């Protein structure tokens, strides 16, 4: 459903990076710290390694079907009706994911920055932005990511540098005091939030890339760079805030930014650092919405997904107001339901897709390669 849109390898790398960082950077240090305590950063590295394996799976699928979108792949592998059913599963995944991200955004703003503004205001504004993005299309989103990336990088480097003096190494000791199981569980949470949603990139990967060569590498590189950002943030939040505080804080990165104090002059700059998360969360939300609109368009046989941007966005906004009734529910959902759900959509379905694709290709497909 790419509709002739083409993006470059570089743009794709940046998109994959932004998408990996997304909301992860804001919430994951807390989840990691609650499971793996002071070893949360090790868990994030483990998660990063696990992510690479998952990305390899997506790349393999991309190699198998270089010229079609996710919906096309599913139909080619499972047949028309089963394929449509599987597409529906992905559409639902992006729908839930998209509204959850919008809720995160609104919740972050109302709980941390502007408590008196109703959450709906933030969600509608941000949702409107997402609608504009999807409506302008993949190419524009990719170019936007390319322009905004240096700004994100600048904010990140500045905040990381400013936090260096605050590091207290006692907070990360003992280094292997926690068993393997909590680390495995924590890394699963990392993978579920950061990498498994990347399955939606199959909607345009690698069909919409102007060069197929190096496309897989781009996805991997984007994911790993994004993962490195998260590892750094996790390490900083454990070493500066301590495991206990990190795990009890809903948004430890934000609390982290509050700690910045350079010569009693540069301090309390957390709102400027928040700009960085607004960027990454925007791309996460935009690509969930893109997956929702593009998948729906494909399912209904529409030629273009762009006219669906506004209605899809409206549904997302409306649903995001009710997706989580409250924060307690959100935390409960994220730690119990979401991870298995993400695994089923982001890992099991693609595995099935790959298996079915390989079996189908075998008899006569060799010549295609």
């Amino acid at each position: 459903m790419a509709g002739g849109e083409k993006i470059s390898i570089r743009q794709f790398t940046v998109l994959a990076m932004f998408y990996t960082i997304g909301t992860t950077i804001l919430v994951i240090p807390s989840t990691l710290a609650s499971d793996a305590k002071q070893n949360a950063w090790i868990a994030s590295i483990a998660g990063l390694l696990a992510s690479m394996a998952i990305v390899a799976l997506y790349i393999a699928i991309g190699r198998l079907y270089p010229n079609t979108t996710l919906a096309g792949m599913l139909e080619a592998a499972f047949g028309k009706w089963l394929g449509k059913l599987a597409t529906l599963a992905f559409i639902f995944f992006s729908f839930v994911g998209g509204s959850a991200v919008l809720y995160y955004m609104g919740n972050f703003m109302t709980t941390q920055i502007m408590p008196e503004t109703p959450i709906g205001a933030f969600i509608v504004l941000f949702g409107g932005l997402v609608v504009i993005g999807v409506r302008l299309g993949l190419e524009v989103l990719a170019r936007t990511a390319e322009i905004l990336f240096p700004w994100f990088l600048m904010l990140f480097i500045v905040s990381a540098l400013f936090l260096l003096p605050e590091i207290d190494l006692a907070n990360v000791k003992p280094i292997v005091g926690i068993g393997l199981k909590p680390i495995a569980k924590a890394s699963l949470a990392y993978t579920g939030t950061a990498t498994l949603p990347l399955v939606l990139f199959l909607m345009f990967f690698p069909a919409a890339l102007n060069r197929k060569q190096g496309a897989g590498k781009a996805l991997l590189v984007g994911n790993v760079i994004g993962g490195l950002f998260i590892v750094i943030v996790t390490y900083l939040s454990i070493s500066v805030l301590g495991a206990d505080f990190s795990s009890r804080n809903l948004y430890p990165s934000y609390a982290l930014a509050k700690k910045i104090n350079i010569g009693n002059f540069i301090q309390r700059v957390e709102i400027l650092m928040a700009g960085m998360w607004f960027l990454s969360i925007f791309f996460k939300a935009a690509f969930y919405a893109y997956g929702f609109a593009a998948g729906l368009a494909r399912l209904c046989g529409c030629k273009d997904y762009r006219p669906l941007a506004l209605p899809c966005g409206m549904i997302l906004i409306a649903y995001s107001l009710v997706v989580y009734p409250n924060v307690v529910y959100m935390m409960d959902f994220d730690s119990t339901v979401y991870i298995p759900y993400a695994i089923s959509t982001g890992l099991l379905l693609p595995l099935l897709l790959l298996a079915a694709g390989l079996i189908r290709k075998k008899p006569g497909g060799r010549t295609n390669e």
Partner: protein
Amino acid sequence: MKNNDTKAEPIKEELKENIQKIKQDLGGSDDIIIREITFGKDDSAHAAIIYTDGLADKKLITDFILDSQTQKSYAEELDREADRDNLLEALKALALNLGDNKEIADFRSLYNAILSGETVLLLEGYSVGIAASTRGWKDRSVSEPVAQSVVRGPQEGFTETLRTNTSMIRRKIKDPNLWLETMQIGKVTKTDVAIMYIKGIVSDKVVEEVRARLDRIDIDGVLESGYIEELIQDEAFSPFPTINNTERPDNVAAELLEGRVAILVDGTPFVLIVPTLFISFFQTAEDYYQRADISTLLRFIRFISLFIAMVGPALYIAITTFHQELLPTQLLISLAAQREGVPFPAFIEALMMEVTFEVLREAGIRMPRPIGQAVSIVGTLVIGQAAVEAGIVSASMVIVVSITAISSFVITGYSMAISVRMIRFVIMGLAAAFGIFGIVVALIALVMHLCSLRSFGVPYMSPFAPFVPADHKDTIFRLPHWAMSTRPRLINQRNVNREQTSKPTKPADRNNQGRR
């Protein structure tokens, strides 16, 4: 449209009838001069000379056409031409020793010729006339460009005459590949519009596109290049200009050398340049005449100014309203003390001051020159000081608005500066409602909009997005000329190499050279 049909009528053989018709069609306008003359042996040849007073160069007409001495010599010459059928040819060859003349056969081109300043010669017994190029009218002389002045660089600007302008470009680029195409646009004004490009450097697709878009124009009049700009731009609804304009010939020459197309419109010194990138509005001709490091620094300053001009007041509003913790305590206290007596929220305060400033600026441009002093006094004293003392706005707000205003003047492209002024208000509104979150949302939306724009097929935000590494030698940075070896990649894909000058090196051994 009956009028149009009659105008396309062919010229008749009878001179009297032709003159009658011309007088009738032009409503007997006094500035159309029709002189009937007779010449040749025994005055056998009757002719009429028609021109527009004021548009045609009278001296030229007197010297070459009406001068009795010349006529006599022509007559002698003509006598030698026994064949009377060839009178017209002979006249064309001999009589009109003027730079350029052409035959016309119908009234439409006759009127067109006369009204563009040419002199038409009609002969009894011939159904064709001769139009001699005698264009010459009172014209503003070439002077310093007003809108784009420089410290170092040529001090000449375009004028209102198309021919003068094309000649100024020709003087800079003496290459046979510099091509010029002229067309007339405007059903009533019949304005000459010329496109200029360097064949071999320009992308043919762009030239084709420019031609096609100009051909599509169907309008009664074109009075300034702004008409053309609005009629051919890519995106109709965008605050950002996708076509640049300049009144500097050196600017146009530089753009032509980069593979762009210049659109010149008769009657205005502002020349359009396509395709235009966002970055073009932050570069000046002078960047290339100064040392590279200084130019780079100045470009940085321009970008900082863009940022201040766009989000300066918005940031002030957001910080004082929502994010007071960002400010150092001392500053916060002093700000709070200043704002103590101010009855309005920061947003209203900022809005008032911004609107006042925009009004002042508009007044400064529109009012008669001698009153200029009055506005500046009223502006600085009354609105600056008195408003603060009266407690209507805080002093810090005045500072913010002033810095914003000055910053917006730094943006070199005037049309871009105007859009920034406009967008500022939207961002201020979002900042008032959502603080920095609102500003970031506005900026993301802005970047997305900019990325969606194209100018004649070239992405507006290139070379940022799509990122073209080679073009960054001349984007924010301005590398020395010996390092800028390629032309902008997206504007032109064929003839990319610009130069092969190597980096200047020091003489091998200065001491030795000195001794010799």
